[in-house]
């Protein structure tokens, strides 16, 4: 896609000058909150929505003027869109039928696809007789049976319960990879995107903020929204007081000082320091260490493999610290502790002009409307 834009009703900018390249056989995800434009972008690729500007290429061919049926894509809808008046077999073989493939070929492909998703025995069932997971698999096999080389998936797991969603996400990737297809998967679930994608594009308000592998997005977020949306982060307000070779010194609220290896900001600049909860260490009492902050445990939550602490610092900021539950001693509510973090595992972002809360928001609040 090159400079693709789409505006609805002359005022809602759904896609804002997006350029993106997806490689052959890649499992690519578009990740972002509801309303960020990811589904619109997917529908533009499919030809279901006409862009106001820009070009869409599929397999190096410009497809702007091509209708959906001629783009060689398969689309899995969020609501599956299984034809209610057709049984599973007729749904899956619909694509081969309307493309006038030889009957034998259509039947062979239909059988293969249904066996691949383990639903061949349910071929006589109608959509209303199937569970959510089964409908999702039928929708997927229908899209694959039509011979698509590019698979577009619009929140394909969104309507399923958590356990099924967790299991099916790996099935999806396995199928796509086994068949050698290219997939573009739209989701708002960052865990899902991280688990199955080769690369991810994070979107907000019609724009792409960052594209990268899951590791790149997690360990090196380039935008404060990405830092918050992908994984979890603590955000501490401060100012840059001194920059030197390879390090920057920050003064947080209440005069607390820390340093970071992220030297992208200038002296005197108002910034936000981001530190992931799992990069903090926590010790009893007041221990003077580099990048150490003193505080009191305000709340703790046992989460099975992890313990989650909320520590109120001396400047009243609260940081979340996540530690493995089986490997370390636990701390109690009310205990004085020292939390510290390595400077190379922190990020510094310019303080957002509209305020931190609004910048990180995933949906419009009444104040923003």
């Amino acid at each position, binding site marked *: 896609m090159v400079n693709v834009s789409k505006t609805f009703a002359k005022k809602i900018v759904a896609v804002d000058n997006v350029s993106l390249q997806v490689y052959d056989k890649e499992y690519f995800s578009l990740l972002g909150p509801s309303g960020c434009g990811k589904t619109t972008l997917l529908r533009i690729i499919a030809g279901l929505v006409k862009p106001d500007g820009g070009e869409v290429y599929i397999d190096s061919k410009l497809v702007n003027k091509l209708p*959906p049926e001629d783009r060689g894509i398969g689309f899995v809808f969020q609501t599956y869109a299984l*034809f209610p008046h057709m049984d599973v077999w007729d749904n899956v073989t619909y694509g081969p039928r309307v493309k006038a493939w030889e009957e034998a070929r259509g039947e062979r492909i239909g059988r293969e696809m249904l066996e691949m998703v383990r639903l061949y025995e349910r071929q006589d069932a109608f959509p209303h007789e199937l569970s959510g997971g089964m409908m999702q698999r039928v929708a997927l096999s229908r899209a694959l049976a039509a011979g698509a080389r590019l698979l577009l998936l619009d929140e394909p797991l969104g309507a399923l319960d958590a356990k099924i969603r967790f299991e099916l996400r790996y099935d999806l990737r396995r199928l796509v990879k086994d068949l050698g297809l290219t997939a573009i998967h739209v989701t708002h679930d960052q865990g899902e995107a991280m688990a199955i994608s080769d690369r991810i594009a994070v979107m907000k308000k019609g724009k792409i903020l960052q594209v990268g592998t899951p590791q790149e997005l997690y360990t090196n977020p380039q935008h404060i929204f990405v830092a918050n949306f992908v994984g979890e982060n603590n955000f501490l307000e401060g100012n840059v007081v001194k920059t030197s070779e390879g390090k920057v010194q920050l003064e947080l609220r209440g005069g607390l000082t820390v340093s970071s290896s992220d030297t992208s900001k200038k002296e005197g600049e108002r910034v936000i320091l981001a530190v992931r909860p799992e990069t903090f260490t926590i010790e009893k009492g007041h221990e003077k260490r580099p990048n150490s902050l003193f505080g009191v445990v305000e709340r703790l939550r046992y989460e099975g493999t992890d313990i989650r602490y909320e520590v109120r610092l001396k400047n009243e900021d609260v940081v979340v610290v996540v530690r493995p539950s089986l490997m370390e001693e636990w701390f109690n509510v009310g205990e004085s502790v020292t939390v510290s973090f390595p400077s190379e595992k922190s990020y510094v972002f310019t303080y957002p002009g509209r305020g931190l809360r609004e910048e990180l928001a995933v949906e419009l609040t009444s104040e923003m409307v």
Partner: protein
Amino acid sequence: MPNSSAVGYFDKVSSRPFVRHLIYSGSVIFFFGIILIPPILGIILRWNAIGEIFESPNLISRASSAIYASFAIALLVSFLDLVAGLPLAWFIARGKSKWLNIIDTLADLPFIIPTVTLGYSLLLYWNGPEGVSQFFGANPLVSKGWLLIALLHFAFSYPAVVRVIVGALFDYKVVYEEAARTLGAAPLTADRTVTLPILKSSLIAAFTLAFARSLSETGATVIVAGAFENGVVFIKNTRDAGQEGPMVFVSFVLIFTASLIYLTIRLLGPRLKMPVKRVWPFVERKLSDFKVKTVRDSFTTLVFFAFVLVPSLFIVFPIVSALSNGTLNQAVSGVGVWQGYWQGLLLSYFVATTVTALNILVSLPMAVLIARKRWGATASTTLDVLSNIPMIVPSIALGASMSIFWRNFAFIPEIALIILAHLSITYPYFVRAMVAAIERVTMDLEEASRTLGARPFTVFRTIILPLTKYSLFAGTIMMFARSVDETGATLAVVTGVKTVPVLLVDWVRGTVPASAMDIALGAGLLVLFSFIILLVLRIVVKGRH
């Protein structure tokens, strides 16, 4: 909200199961006792008179031909309405032309024209010397008879068919079509193999509606029939001639056969399979082409204009003449035939208002009973089917059999007979509208209200009614308009008292001597008053909504 003592009392007593059963039972007893059973009993009471028809081969032949003509015309017209109405509905629902809003509004225009006016307008258009006949050198182009009846029925059912299908298309989830397109189907293939089968129930409903309207239409049919007789014309003619036996016989056959056809469609319609497996990709792709689509849409619009809109509005020309040649002064002064006109008009609106108010009271509990299955699913389905029967059967047949029954109660004045007949005819319109609306209100809302302490009548008043008020007002408007328009049943139940559509039929047929200008103006004024009242009602609805 302050609670009046009456409302508070109803709120309180509605908790008692006995009171609720009483209300529902009362509604059902009213339906069976006033609407459904009297016409059946009327036929049974005069069953012996049917023998009269078998004594005359001529009468048998006339009756058979008339019955056959009714069903043949209804089937033909319903089929044509569906074939012609579907493309226009598609164009309105899916098209992107800037003229769409105008066409959408125009498609509704024939709705607001009372059918007797419509009949007269079509008569002038197809049969009159100043209509289309002059362009074809024919005199007339279409004679009074079965073809003119078919053209009339086509025109007045067409907007109803288009509206049902447009509504279905707006409700339809376009994602199914999109899915078909992403699987490689051309637009026409997607429409034929996916959209139409999913809309099947709406297409059947549209067909049934057109069929029922054609079978039932009396006033305008009598105007354009000439010497030709279909079922309703035969009933009117035999009634006027005092031949009760033939009248009862044909009424019975029409009621029975129409009910049977309706039940068959209702039961077997959902099982009808549409051909979706075979595809012709090359041909359908060509037919999906933009140019072909443009030609198709243009042709569809032309058919609509030539066979529906222009004939329906043709009466405007004589109305304009009547306004400028002194007829209006006579009308306003109530001179000559106009005295009867104003009396008829007042009677029409009085009856419509009374019928509407009564029907709301008695059919609301029935609607709740059906929608909420208070007496179980079987009872609900049975009542739903039965409550639709007065809409399916020809109104004149219904009226004829009702008048036989109620005549046994000599103390009932003629105006009450008209009210009873109109109650029956309009009842299904309101029940259907309210059943659909109540079904859309999820039970969760009622249950939430009850857990918060609301009694059943409070729930009805504060939850159901506000959430269904648009359908309530729409149903009210439909009932009112239907009652004002009703001719057949009125013709059948009374002879002395005339509502304005009945009077206009007499004017056109020459039974009452009225000039062409009188007829045109009388028909035009009826349209005007109907339009004003409907506009006021719509403003009230919009304001409250």
